[in-house]
């Protein structure tokens, strides 16, 4: 039964992945303006024949369906083509850009989830009091604060308080581990705030939910202190939805990274995607969006499976 469920979900997953590849490919080609025009820049002298020549060079003169089949065929054997601009293999380019984004998202997740546990517990313990209400309002602020704005304000504050601190840009971990983390701290905090807000709220309601359950009553009846009820019994139960929603956060993180990387000059996937859109760098854009989306889908799939494994009720 459980096994068949997994098979069914896997079939769905493959359907989604194939559809995503189709959507990505055709959506990119629907974007008006093409790589050739951008390559030449605004206002250069060029004849239509030269344009056509350059287009043929890039393989953009083939029918779109044919382009798609050729692309997906090569992609399945691990060849995503080369970047239109640098001529380097697309996978190499993505590999270079994936590390800063991974680091940034992991660091934000660490900060956000790490702080959410104590915050959520505190809110659950203080439920219904004024402090709880204030903290809830604070979490709503955290959830709705525009990250691009927060990033800019942070840069402004840094410039005002410590004009000679070189806190921006990206330094590879292998070059200087300490500097690497130091420079990622501001963008990570910017990105982490909504996660912190979201997860602590989730934890609060999951714990309140747990507090109404029978086994908590039993624990209370046995004379457990209120503290231990909240922190041990309720928290343990609340961690399941907490862990699963961490998976859902990856989607938010990838979206948020697009804007935050732009502001803090971090050479990650977000910059790569925005740049590739601006340049109409089809092979690069296709592969990047496909990989990002697949990563997102697969993470969610794994989380779903975990959920199935943990919580027998869902299986029914």
């Amino acid at each position, binding site marked *: 039964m459980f096994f068949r469920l997994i098979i069914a979900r896997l079939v*769905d997953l493959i*359907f*989604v992945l194939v*559809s*995503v590849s189709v*959507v990505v490919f055709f*959506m*990119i080609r*629907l*974007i*008006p303006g093409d790589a050739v025009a951008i390559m030449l820049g605004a206002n250069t002298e060029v004849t239509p024949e030269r344009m056509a020549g350059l287009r043929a060079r890039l393989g953009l003169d083939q029918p779109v369906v044919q382009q798609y089949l050729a692309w997906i065929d090569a992609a399945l054997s691990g060849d995503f083509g080369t970047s239109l601009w640098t001529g380097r293999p697309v996978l190499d380019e993505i590999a270079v850009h994936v590390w800063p984004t991974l680091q940034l998202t992991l660091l934000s997740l660490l900060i956000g989830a790490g702080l959410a546990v104590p915050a959520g517990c505190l809110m659950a313990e203080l*439920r*219904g*009091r*004024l402090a709880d*209400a204030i903290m*809830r*309002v604070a979490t*709503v*602020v955290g*959830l*709705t*604060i*525009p990250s*691009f*704005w*927060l990033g*800019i*304000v942070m840069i*402004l504050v840094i*410039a005002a308080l410590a004009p000679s601190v070189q806190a921006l840009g990206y330094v590879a971990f292998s070059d200087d581990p300490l500097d690497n983390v130091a420079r990622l701290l501001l963008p990570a905090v910017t990105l982490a705030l909504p996660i912190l807000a979201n997860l602590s*709220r989730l934890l609060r*309601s999951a714990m*309140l*939910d747990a*507090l*109404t359950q029978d086994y908590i009553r039993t624990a209370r009846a046995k004379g457990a202190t209120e503290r231990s009820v909240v922190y041990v019994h309720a928290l343990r139960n609340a961690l399941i939805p907490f862990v699963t929603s961490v998976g859902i956060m990856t*989607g*938010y993180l*990838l*979206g*948020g990274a*697009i*804007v935050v990387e732009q502001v803090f000059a971090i050479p990650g996937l977000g910059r790569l*995607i*925005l740049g590739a*859109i601006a340049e109409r760098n089809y092979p690069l854009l296709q592969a990047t*969006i496909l990989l*990002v*989306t697949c990563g*997102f*889908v697969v993470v969610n799939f794994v989380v779903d499976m975990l959920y199935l494994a943990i919580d027998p009720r869902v299986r029914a």
Partner: protein
Amino acid sequence: MRRLAHNRLLVLAVGFVALQALLAVFAPIVSPHDPLEQHVLARLRGPGGTYWLGTDQFGRDVLSRIIYGCRASLAVSATAVAAALLAGGTLGLLASYYRGWLERIVMRLMDVLFAFPVLLLAIGIVAVLGPRNSTAAVAIAIVYTPIFARLLRGPALVICESDYVMSALAVGASDMRVIFMHVLPNLMSVVLVQTSLLLSAAILVEASLSFLGLGTQPPTPSLGLMLSEGRNFLMLSPWSAIFAGIAILFLSFGINLLGDVLRDTLDPRLRGER
């Protein structure tokens, strides 16, 4: 005591949202200046004097532009979320009512759309349709459709299998009658809560798109655009960028708080009462 704190929060949220909605609706009356009128000699002023919140790089009144910007932002996000609710809600409801292959097809299609990170898909759609106010709304509507479909399917499933729906069907009520008389009313609380939470998020997406130059076009006042333009003059006068950011925060905050409090009110389990 707890109920009181709770009600206070509700009053705060409703008041906040109502105030902003009124400001947006009556923008032409409330604004102290014309949001498009340029006064080059008075540009990049700080708050105070004739221009309460200062002026931008063309000497346009920041306060007036923020009021009009809230109006534009609300109009785009509300239209988009309403459209998404209609489309996604219908699909989710039909899927859960009829089940079978219809459900399978609809939900897989929703899965495909849902597979993309929200902002990424929105950027893609706007890039295809061309950056305008209306296309930003279309993009947000498309992005939110699968979210509504998924959110409503679960509760709808429970209701569809409940005893009273079963008995309504048993006495021979038509599908439409059951959906409109029995299923839909029972979904209202979920719809209300989720719509306000998603509207709050949509305001941020709209602002992000405008910030990236993919939403409202200049010189029309828009909060995201003000922030984007203002950041070029941060070291000269950060005010227009700072106030625009605060306005986005307030707008999104009020609606989100409302949804949050509504959820607690409508779902007694979460009140924290034993």
